[in-house]
């Protein structure tokens, strides 16, 4: 029983990591109907930006919530700016091209970032500085709830609510929804589509920045290929929850995290990914639009 509770905690904590990255995928898809495969590498660049700034400022010496917030801000700015550049120079020229061209360009940008990362940062893993000290919040017997687990879950839920608010309640959000449902008509009605799309990329990418610092804090090993696996899992989570749906991304990510954890615990660690992805296939057979995809009238 103790182990079961521990597995649940582990699973949710892993799932909330996936959620932070899944939100970026789902947001860009919701507005533009394109899968930004470079998202996971923007996340990697965010981690390195935070790493170098932290070393430059000597943050290791003074861990605490202020340092954490500052690093998150740095990483968000770096990722947001990179997202802006990618949209401006890689995707915008292809706006009118067939969907497939943009998809292939996205994969190209992803590989470009991965391999330039290896040249610029070096291919060996770097150790992320200790921004905050992890401590045990609650214990019942051998089961422990740690502060990092709760922080990551909290941050991903807050990010989800902020996004919902941004898209549903603000003027920019209304413009985003307009671009999402029909870009041409939106532009005729006075929405600056280029600006809105760039804004969407900046917001989506800065979410990756938040994720990268939290992951770096929890698993202090970063390398230029760190985005690959986690990006794939997060993408799958977004599809599982219904890609384009903000709440769905978080739900899908939590299900992914929990199912991976439970497969290792009660079935087989060797076939973890096979089972976890198998669950996805079964869910998609019964709900092709993803768990929450069908119910959202307006996909954002």
């Amino acid at each position, binding site marked *: 029983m103790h182990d079961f509770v521990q597995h649940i905690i*582990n699973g949710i904590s892993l799932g909330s990591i996936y959620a932070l990255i899944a939100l970026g995928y789902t947001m860009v898809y919701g507005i533009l109907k394109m899968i930004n495969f470079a998202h996971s590498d923007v996340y990697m660049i965010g981690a390195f930006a935070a790493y170098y700034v932290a070393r430059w400022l000597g943050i290791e010496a003074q861990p605490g919530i202020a340092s954490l917030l500052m690093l998150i801000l740095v990483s968000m700015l770096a990722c947001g700016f990179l997202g802006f550049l990618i949209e401006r120079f890689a995707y915008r020229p292809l706006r009118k091209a067939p969907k497939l061209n943009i998809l292939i360009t996205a994969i190209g940008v992803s590989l470009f970032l991965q391999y330039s990362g290896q040249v610029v940062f070096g291919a060996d893993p770097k150790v992320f500085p200790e921004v905050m000290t992890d401590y045990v919040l609650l214990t019942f017997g051998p089961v*422990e709830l*740690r502060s990092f687990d709760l922080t990551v879950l909290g941050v991903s839920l807050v990010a989800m609510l902020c996004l919902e608010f941004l898209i549903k309640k603000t003027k920019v959000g209304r413009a985003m929804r307009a671009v999402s449902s029909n870009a041409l008509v939106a532009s005729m009605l006075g929405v600056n589509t280029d600006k809105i799309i760039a804004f969407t990329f900046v917001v989506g990418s800065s979410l990756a920045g938040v994720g990268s610092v939290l992951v770096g804090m929890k698993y202090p090993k970063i390398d230029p290929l760190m985005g690959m696996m986690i990006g794939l899992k997060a993408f799958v989570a977004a599809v599982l929850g219904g890609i384009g749906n903000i709440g769905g991304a978080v739900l899908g990510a939590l299900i992914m995290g929990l199912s991976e954890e439970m497969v290792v615990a009660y079935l087989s660690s060797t076939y973890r990914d096979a089972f976890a992805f198998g669950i996805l296939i079964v869910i998609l057979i019964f709900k092709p639009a993803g768990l929450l995809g069908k119910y959202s009238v307006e996909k954002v």
Partner: protein
Amino acid sequence: MKRLLPILCVLFFLGACTKNTNEIVIGEYDSLTGSDATFGLSSNKGVRMAFDEINDAGGIKGKKISLITLDDQGKNEEAASATTRLITHNKVIAIIGGVASGRSKAAAPIAQAHKVPFVSPSSTNPDVTKAGDYIFRVCFIDPFQGLVMAKFARENLNLKKVAILRDVKNDYSVGLSNVFKREFADRGGQIVADLSYQAGDIDFKAQLTEIRSKSPDGIYIPGYYTEVGLIAQQARQLGIKAPLMGGDGWDSDKLSEIGKQAIDGNYYSNHYTTESADPAVTEFIKKFKAKYNETPDALAALGYDAARILAQAIERAPDLSGKAIRDELAKTKDFPGVTGKITLNENRDAVKSAVIIQVEGKNRKFITTINP
């Protein structure tokens, strides 16, 4: 242009000829980028240092060695194509392979088919040299490392119940785990759990929670340092106090940077120790530090030994044909390497001893030597 072409061809051909007679071209491929690039970079430094020394001393047979290094990006298919390119395009007379066993298995059959001698510095999977009689290695093989750790765990640490956590994507890790499992059980120990992860994972709490429920006396994790550092941290977070044990994949300074205090006090088997008093080792460490400003790890030492064994065989060979070099490589006996006395046996594997190392912060404490 049409009339010029044949002349250009002849010139090019002559150019190629003169180049070939002045120097001996040796090829090397390794992962200079990719997730285990630190291994490849270390090994490459050892190889380069050996050839630079030989060139400074006048080269082999009065000719300078020219080393061509290609990057395999940590991918098996790239290792295969790099090998083909070295042989067909660069016309190398011998190849020094990379670190990872999976990549050596992809590259070795190609070298064998072209009858080009191939020396692997540090691929420990037993199948590597089975590709044919042109394939050699200067390190011990996985069964031996698994056996060494099983012996040490049972006899020196006196452990009874051990759990295994293996990297299921990695031939090396699976090989060590299988042998450890058998040898530990043969010595009266009990394997209470055998779980796996995949290189690139960052969260191991599911496996570790499962292992914790079996309360083992020790955990065998024969993976690479990239994951082992994180595994150690998460194991200690979950309150697992049992010692962790591993193989030479742990051997990197980054291990303790990633694992911090969590990795201290744990054991791994290795090819050599920097604490050795052997003058060959101290001399090597001194020269390496002077050249690269860092302490050589075992992979650098093996790269250095591999390059020197190959150079020595070429020196002894009557001519520069693949067959002649192969025959001399096969005769290597009691070579005084940095990683111990190296004799190549009939399977073209090295027979040598292993050491057990304990992690102590940045230091690597020598515990004991275990002989074949």
